[in-house]
């Protein structure tokens, strides 16, 4: 019977079962404890120990609410804690239109309403051009963008009077979903710590930069972000997905085994 099944139906069954498996933790919470790794603690301590009065640039680049954005939101929550106490100041920019699209949801989650716009934080909005945008902002943000997202000239924003280039910052945070090379080239190695939020599969790509000290800490969605939320004491999206991630990983491993069994069975039948 399995031999007659068309490949597209096989895929459909795999996906259908995936939906069922991923739904199990909603009905029966597993509650596996989340462990906090050394990199997560390092990232947390870097933000906690940033000098008072410093400006942080957050380059929000990716919109995938359930993966990369959960890490962005968690990191921003920690930075905003210190912004609220007047210890840090925050400038946010976006490199692509995708991250702009879901930004309202991010602002609602972060509850920025109590902050004084222009003084405690500024949103530069879209700075298109990918790596070129990073290079331009790092070299001279005033030449890269004349106004903020709302069209207010930078000259009218008190916070921007202290931010002209990367040298005025105490930290740059940015997100990628592929190669970490562009932000490392443009923000890294300039005397300002760089924190990178990137997909889990890109850890090996980031490691050479981590060992070289270009990336001081990284954050990946899923388990690491769940651990970070635990350290923060603010459970969020990553924590709520931790159980689902565990069962889907087990399901994926089962699929790998089944895929190989089917493959070898068919090969033997062909012979």
């Amino acid at each position: 019977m399995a031999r007659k099944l068309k490949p597209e139906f096989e895929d459909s069954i795999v996906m259908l079962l995936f939906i069922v498996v991923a739904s199990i933790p909603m009905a029966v919470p597993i509650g596996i404890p989340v462990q906090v790794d050394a990199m997560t603690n390092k990232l947390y301590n870097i933000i906690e120990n940033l000098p008072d009065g410093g400006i942080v640039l957050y380059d929000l680049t990716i919109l995938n609410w359930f993966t990369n954005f959960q890490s962005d939101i968690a990191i921003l929550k920690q930075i905003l804690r210190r912004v609220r106490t007047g210890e840090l100041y925050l400038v946010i920019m976006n490199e692509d239109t995708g991250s702009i699209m879901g930004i309202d949801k991010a602002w609602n989650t972060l509850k920025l309403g109590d902050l004084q716009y222009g003084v405690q934080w500024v949103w530069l909005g879209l700075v298109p051009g990918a790596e070129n945008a990073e290079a331009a902002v790092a070299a001279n943000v005033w030449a890269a963008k004349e106004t903020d997202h709302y069209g207010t000239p930078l000259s009218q924003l008190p916070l921007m009077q202290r931010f002209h280039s990367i040298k005025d910052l105490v930290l740059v945070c940015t997100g990628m979903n592929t190669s970490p090379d562009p932000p490392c080239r443009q923000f890294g190695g300039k005397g300002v710590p760089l924190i990178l939020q990137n997909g889990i599969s890109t850890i090996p790509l980031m490691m050479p930069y981590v060992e070289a000290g270009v990336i001081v800490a990284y954050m990946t969605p899923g388990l690491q972000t769940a651990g970070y939320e635990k350290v923060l004491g603010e459970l969020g999206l990553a924590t709520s997905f931790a159980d689902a991630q565990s069962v889907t990983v087990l399901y994926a491993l089962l699929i790998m085994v089944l895929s190989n069994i089917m493959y070898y069975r068919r090969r033997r039948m062909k012979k």
Partner: protein
Amino acid sequence: MSVLRRREIPMALYIIVMVYLILSNYTGLGKDVAANIRSWGIAIATFAALIGVISISYIHLLKIYRRRAGWPYSIVLFTCFIVYFVVAHVYTPGYNWIINNLSIPLGAAFLSGFNTLGVIFRGSRVRSIWSLLIVISVVFTALFMASVGPVISPAIVSVATWIKDYPTTGVFRAVTVGIGIGLLMLVVRAILGMEKSYLGEM
């Protein structure tokens, strides 16, 4: 041939700007002009969105008009594009609804689940000793990335950390160095006028 159509002009502009930016970066001279040149890049990137709109309209309208293969999908795509574009500029709550209830969940479902599972199902077949090594690495790394991994066995964490820190990091260090050398070669080729891909030549 018209002077304006000669390829030496864009090549000269490209090389002069690139050499200027490199010199400015390493000497600190003319930094303001270099910053302005970079901001031109940002302005050009903004126009890329306009080119995208023209391109998507042209390709799909032509496909629908000529009834080429898959034209009904073009109707769906073009309709969604128009609806989304209009709603974004006319009715903000509707735009937010589309983003929060359609775009974000569908994107997450596709990228995080179905796409990955499809790759696992089709791509994890052990056909050689090398693919077996990859599959074993995937098993340890996947379990390491989920909270269930350390619960099954603490050894999973040790093995996965070793895989991450040594074999994969070693390989990607070589890849990173290779990319760096490749970029340097690209710059040298461009300065010598040998690199012409930006003119549409191979």
